[in-house]
């Protein structure tokens, strides 16, 4: 499977370095290594979800308990989480670090991913969620740390889009 193990490691190290100790996740191809790393790490609490929106609630509870968390999901999972993001994270000012695999972008071969790809950035913009696209592994640690810092200081959702360039090796 040509999902980049190296760049998954870079992302996971950045998550750990930014203090994240709980991740919620729903499996998706590009995220398999990241989720496995969380599973294998005794310092990390991994919560496998049935639907991504549950993760907004789990992150909210973790925040109240003083634990930094992140959500790992595909962009379609982001689409499925919108009410939780708006009515819990934004309404109640909960920091939410969202790592979103950006399917349906340039180079996508799966026809079923393409509509979600088109909707992702316009939706992030319309919700007022700051986001950054991660493509260069050399920038991942800094961008992730910055996103985590902004989520905590603004008490709002912040998104990082994990692009094909970062996650996929052809």
């Amino acid at each position, binding site marked *: 499977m040509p999902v980049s193990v190296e760049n998954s490691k870079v992302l996971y190290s950045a998550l750990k370095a930014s203090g994240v100790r709980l991740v919620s996740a729903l499996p998706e191809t590009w995220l398999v290594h990241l989720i496995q790393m969380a599973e294998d790490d005794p310092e990390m609490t991994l919560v496998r979800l049935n639907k991504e*929106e549950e993760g907004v609630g789990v992150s909210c509870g973790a925040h109240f308990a003083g634990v930094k968390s992140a959500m790992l999901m595909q962009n379609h999972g982001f689409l499925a989480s919108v009410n939780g993001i708006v009515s819990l994270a934004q309404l*109640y000012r909960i920091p939410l670090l969202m790592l979103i695999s950006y399917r349906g972008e340039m180079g996508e071969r799966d026809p079923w991913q393409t509509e979600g790809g088109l909707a992702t950035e316009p939706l992030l913009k319309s919700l007022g969620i700051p986001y950054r696209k991660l493509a260069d592994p050399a920038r991942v640690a800094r961008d992730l740390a910055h996103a985590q810092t902004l989520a905590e200081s603004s008490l709002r959702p912040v998104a990082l889009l994990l692009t094909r360039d970062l996650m996929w090796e052809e």
Partner: protein
Amino acid sequence: MLRIDALNAIYPLLKDRIVVTNMGAAAVELYSLGHRKSFFYMEHAMGLASSVGLGLALCLPKQRIVVVDGDGSVLMNLGTLSTLARYRPPNLVHLIFDNESLLSVGGFPTATSTGTDLEAVAKGAGIERTATVREVEELEGVFSEAMAGEELSAIVAKVDAVGPASFAMDVGLLENRFEFARHIKELQGAEV
């Protein structure tokens, strides 16, 4: 059984605990019995009260967490029951008031009015300790056992579709949220 009577009966067991409620009548009624800094009334995001409870329970293993939920909210996020069962935090009690109605928005019948049995769903999802109660005394017994136990439990309390006269609460959403978070921080300070 009226939900307000049920809440009144278990209030002594709730007042010093971390409690997360769903939106609407249950929040207002618990508030009317006496607000506590340890109560978080999640006034929206239907279905996520139990997910918030899961996050709290996993991150605060020394604290007992109570989620006060409703049939409409649980039906909106049924997958939460199997996520709870998967991690089965022993410090979480999920109390579901089932009035078979979306009372807060005008009393539309939910699927529990046409046969969906939430206790059976919870059990089928993998939660081993479950109960359905119909009387206040019965709830008191089952709830106090669950609170004393070391096992995830789901209690379905069948109640009449009767709510409070007013939904007004004199506590702001953000006021409640920050007070609740600060209370937990203080609890953690006391633990150390």
